[in-house]
């Protein structure tokens, strides 16, 4: 059995690290032993550490590093992939894209594991038509709090409690999910630059159904809320041929840059973000149709920059991502204004539409709008301001994404996830002694 090593762990936002006993996973039976022999601090699975807050850390606990179990296989006949929980979407794409398949849902980074994608029930630019990752999972193999291995299918409530369950129902060891056929590794992208938030939102509303993928970037510094909408579909062979692309199925995304190791606090400030946003806005044409972009450039632009989370300096950053129903669409503008008022510079502000949610009690997406903004943790008044925004959002039935959250209160969480008690009931059948615990579950009293 691999040795436990005291290791400081934090989320992608690099705030509030804690120290846990980190153990490399090597087999389901070893994981079952770790669970049955765990200390009172509990056990938690960790993947590639891309959740922004405290979901994949657990002070004093045994944290199982799942990234050492990475096998997966494509089954082209029934269009599915069966993968170890620790297999990364990055590696899976490198294998399946050249063979003509793509993951059903892709987050803003491919440096995530299958287990993490299920636990956070990730969503992508196609949520409005395809739902979240969990909707495409057909089987989950999990080890519960008693150390027993279960195979869960969508008919089982324990399956849905695990989807979006933030790793608190057990340690997923492997899963099967469906994949979609593609003809090339390119996306045909239409770009629309719009000069205010209202036009962006109405364009998203009117035209979302025309494309598989849609997302809007908002210039958070501009008072008008101007931005750029990009929409795309997988490019056909014919489209690639007409653009003279050779080997349209080849796929080999590379790191193009690395963020410096030491960044002074305050590098990202109102001025630098204003300059970046101005450039980013100007870089896009008012309108462009049918540009072919590589999958990596379209879905995972930041994966090209290694450790980009370091640019926020030593205090780290957080991402505020919330969802509100259509009836409260005005809150998008309210939140953007409020963040601008306190001078919170965000260069990654993303707006998109969600389709209906799924049956997982803790899954984040629900019909309506979602906005995500990266915010440096050092801004004064940030805590108070976000608490006020939490109130506004929860009052209209909206909520925050647990994979991003690092600061909401337990009361706000419980109020905005009304199926929490139902989820707890199912969790207790899988983990009666609450062996599975994270800093997030302690902070939110889940």
């Amino acid at each position: 059995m691999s040795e436990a090593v005291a290791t400081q762990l934090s989320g992608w936002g690099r705030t509030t690290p804690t120290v846990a006993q980190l153990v490399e996973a090597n087999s389901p039976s070893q994981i079952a032993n770790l669970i049955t022999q765990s200390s009172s601090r509990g056990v938690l699975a960790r993947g590639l550490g891309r959740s922004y807050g405290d979901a994949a850390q657990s002070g004093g606990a045994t944290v199982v590093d799942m990234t050492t179990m990475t096998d997966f296989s494509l089954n082209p006949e029934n269009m599915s992939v069966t993968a170890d929980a620790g297999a990364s979407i990055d590696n899976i794409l490198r294998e399946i894209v050249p063979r003509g398949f793509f993951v059903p849902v892709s987050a803003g980074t491919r440096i995530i594991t299958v287990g993490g994608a299920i636990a956070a029930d990730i969503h992508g630019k196609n949520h409005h038509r395809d739902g979240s990752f969990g909707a495409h999972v057909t089987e989950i193999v999990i080890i519960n709090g008693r150390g027993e291995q279960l195979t869960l299918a969508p008919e089982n409530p324990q399956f849905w409690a695990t989807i979006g369950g933030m790793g608190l129902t057990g340690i997923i060891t492997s899963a099967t999910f469906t994949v979609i056929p593609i003809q090339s590794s390119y996306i045909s992208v239409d770009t629309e630059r719009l000069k205010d938030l209202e036009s962006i939102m109405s364009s998203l509303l009117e035209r979302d159904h025309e494309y598989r993928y849609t997302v809007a970037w908002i210039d958070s510094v501009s008072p008008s809320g101007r931005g750029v909408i990009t929409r795309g579909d997988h490019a056909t062979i014919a489209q690639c041929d007409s653009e003279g692309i050779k080997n349209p199925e080849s796929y080999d995304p590379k790191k193009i840059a690395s963020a410096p190791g030491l960044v002074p606090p305050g590098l990202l400030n109102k001025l630098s973000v204003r300059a970046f946003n101005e450039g980013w806005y100007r870089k896009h044409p008012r309108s462009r149709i049918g540009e072919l972009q590589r999958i990596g450039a379209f879905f995972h632009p930041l994966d090209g920059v290694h450790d980009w989370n370091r640019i926020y300096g030593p205090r780290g950053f957080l991402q505020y991502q919330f969802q509100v129903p259509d009836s409260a669409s005005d809150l998008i503008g309210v939140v953007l204004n409020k963040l601008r008022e306190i001078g919170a510079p965000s260069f990654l502000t993303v707006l998109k539409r969600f389709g209906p949610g799924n049956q997982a009690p803790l899954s984040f997406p629900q019909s309506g709008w979602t906005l995500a903004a990266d915010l440096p943790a050092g801004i004064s008044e940030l805590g108070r301001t976000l608490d006020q925004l939490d109130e506004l959002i929860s009052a209209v039935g909206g909520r925050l994404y647990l994979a991003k959250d690092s600061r909401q209160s337990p009361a706000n969480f419980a109020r905005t996830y009304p199926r929490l008690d139902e989820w707890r009931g199912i969790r207790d059948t899988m983990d009666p002694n609450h062996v599975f615990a994270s800093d997030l579950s302690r902070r939110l009293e889940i």
Partner: protein
Amino acid sequence: MLDALGEPQSVLVLGGTSEIALATIKEMPRHRLRRVLLAGRPSESLDAAVAQLKALNIAGVEPIEFDAKNTDTHGAIIDAAFDASDIDVVILAFGVLGDQMTAEEDPSHAVEIATVNYTGSVSAGLHVARRLKNQGHGTLVVLSSVAGDRARRSNFVYGSTKAGLDAFAQGLDASLEKTGAHVLIVRPGFVRTRMTSHLPEAPMTTNPEDVAKIIVTALKKGKSTVYAPGPLRFVMAGLKTLPKPLFRKLPS
């Protein structure tokens, strides 16, 4: 758990009537607090401290019975506090000033001061450190004093206990490296409190609220030693190196 902005949910005060500790809790974002334990000997002033915080709508404020001198009981009391749920910040705030002249005439009074300020702190501090290490996060705030920086004629019994406590806390911090737990040593100068109300004020005197602000900022920044007020650091650096004949001529 601390949130991403470094704001605590749970605090344990050992020496629950300490004005500096109470001011520190008031300085923390109140609506984030879920659990505040005030540990001390059962007394009207402990009840008053609990009532004071409850009146501010701080959630989960509770007294717990704790006697610094009764070191045999420290382990069980601290374990019970941590068993219920994680504690983000522990403030080691108990201590007595005593009376220097009485202590010189009656060494048993000096022993009393040493027992509370030093022995009690060593015992409680080690128990707290064990639990912080176990949970992999959290900070022990130790209320030291500039009186420990260099012993003075007028209060060297008290000063020596704080010197011992300060050295202990420095070593404890070193022992907690890479465990996720931290120690923050706070060295206030003269603070206007019940403890000092009978004494003439010294230069750079502060209020408990000023010290509290310094503590809360230091916690967020993850500092390991702070003076209150901050510039006392430089004054004390000067005093520590002052030749003895000059130092002794300073007004006590």
